[in-house]
């Protein structure tokens, strides 16, 4: 099974981008060859999709990476270091990198995981994406679907 997992807070402006992408993919039927999951902010539940039957996971989330707002990048865990500074494993203060490290420490080697990070333009306790990200939503969806179509199960 291949998964696209959207993570974020629907009412956190651009923090919702992962959820909106998963939602749009589901609504438009683009998830024919993979499952699109809207995980909300329940980060620890990512672990449930990381088992031996999982061929590929694409996690989509807003990510402050130092890019221009709205730009995006695909990366794997070994390419980044989290600078979030959360010392413990929590659910709401969740650090995806930490959760994935926890999953690996508990369950052993992870299936292939790639993260599609999208640089936010606005983060606030309000609904709706920023105009910058809203305008590029279709572009993110296309990139995510193309990625899952191109990668083989063996890719890490």
């Amino acid at each position, binding site marked *: 099974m291949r998964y696209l997992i959207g993570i974020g807070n629907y009412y956190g402006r651009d923090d919702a981008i992962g959820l909106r992408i998963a939602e749009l993919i589901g609504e438009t039927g683009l998830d024919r060859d993979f499952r699109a999951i809207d995980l909300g*902010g329940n980060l620890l539940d990512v672990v449930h999709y990381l088992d031996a039957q999982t061929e590929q996971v694409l996690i989509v*989330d807003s*990510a402050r990476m130092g890019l221009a707002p709205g730009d995006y990048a695909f990366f794997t865990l070994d390419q980044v270091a989290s600078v979030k500074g959360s010392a413990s494993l929590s659910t*709401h203060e969740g650090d995806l990198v930490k959760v994935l490290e926890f999953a690996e*420490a508990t369950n052993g080697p992870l299936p292939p995981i790639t993260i599609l990070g999208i640089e936010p333009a606005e983060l606030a306790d309000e609904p709706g994406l920023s105009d910058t990200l809203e305008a590029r939503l279709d572009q993110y969806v296309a990139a995510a679907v193309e990625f899952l179509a191109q990668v083989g199960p063996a890719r890490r």
Partner: protein
Amino acid sequence: MGQNIHIDVHHLTRVEGHGNILVNVTDGVVEQCEWQVPEAPRFFEAMVRGRHYSEVARIVSRICGICSIGHTLASVKATETALGIEITPQTRKLRTLLKHAENFDSHVLHVYILVAPDLLGAPSAFALVPTHAEVVARALRLKRLAHEWGSLIGGRTTHPTTVLPGGFSKVPTVAELEAMRAKLAEAVPDLDATLATITALAPAIPAFQRPTEYMALTSDEEYGLYDGYIQTILADGSRARYEVADYRSCTNEYVSPQSTAKFTKNRLDSYAVGALARFNVNYDQLHPKAKEFAESLGMSPVCTNPYFNSVAQVVEIVHSAYEALRLFDELIADGVVEEPLVQPSRWGTGASAVEVPRGILFHEYAYDDEGLCTDANCIIPTNQNHANIQADFDALLPELMASEKTEDEMRLALEMLVRAYDPCISCSTHNLDVEFIR
């Protein structure tokens, strides 16, 4: 010269959202001892105004990523009350089963991942992986079970999609229910191991007693998770009953300068909600297996140690597992059929209550004659506990000062107290923050 203590915990870890602990004692005099809630309000009640009744539950589900099933159920129930919708027995049974899945899932998360590190002297669940690998693996197995159980009924566990005003958009097949029931039955050894773990850890739970008022939903038919009336109990066993429609008369919200969230009170200056409150109010309706575990720890109502909320959560894990087995059996025996959504018979105002993992949750909506929401009110459990946490602090600090504990030990005791309530202060942002290393 008396003690000088300064504790400043900014954004307490292993709780949901942001809360601060601030203690200042100078020369033995307590100058400040506060549980502070600095989160910004999010105004969900305003967001649903003008939205059609069919959309409201989907919106308010996003109030919380952990209790999204509870918010969805509270929302559809309030809408159904407002619109004169009477759901079918099958819908009620499926929703109750879904409610059990959420409480089971959240309690496993809280007890194993957020509380157990304190009792084992570890900074986080991470640190338990090398030393207690099987315990952590068991936690994830149980969480996954609940995740699949909730997803089967709700479409997905986080922000369920199948629960709608008037019924379900999709119901599971009998074959799917049978498969899920089998998985739950297979988890009994993990449940037994959970009880053994908690029994072993129980002596590490602080011995602190502070009687308060306990509030929970009560039902003549069940433990009171999905439906019923409001009941409170004091430490002397005296009870008071309130109808859900009159929920404002027992919640009595007020503004506190130390919190952006409203505080509540009822017969006393504060009250508690959550697993311990449910345990105290509804003990007689617990499954015998759950009672058996509580009794094995010497725990009985009215339990006035707030740290035992985590133990009460384990009691409820057992209760939910065995109650769910019974509900699965009934649904399998009766068969499950697709039913049309029950349609509104009027437009008006309605309130509801459900028990979410952290306590009783109230939703209320008013709809105009086009089915558009004109007013909304949500009172979440954590807000109802804030005043009680503060009252616990006020009682606990003098005990800690008299016990010759170090400042670090006092800080840990206060942190553990807050964590015992399993507060869900608000959903904060979850964006990644990374730097590229290659």
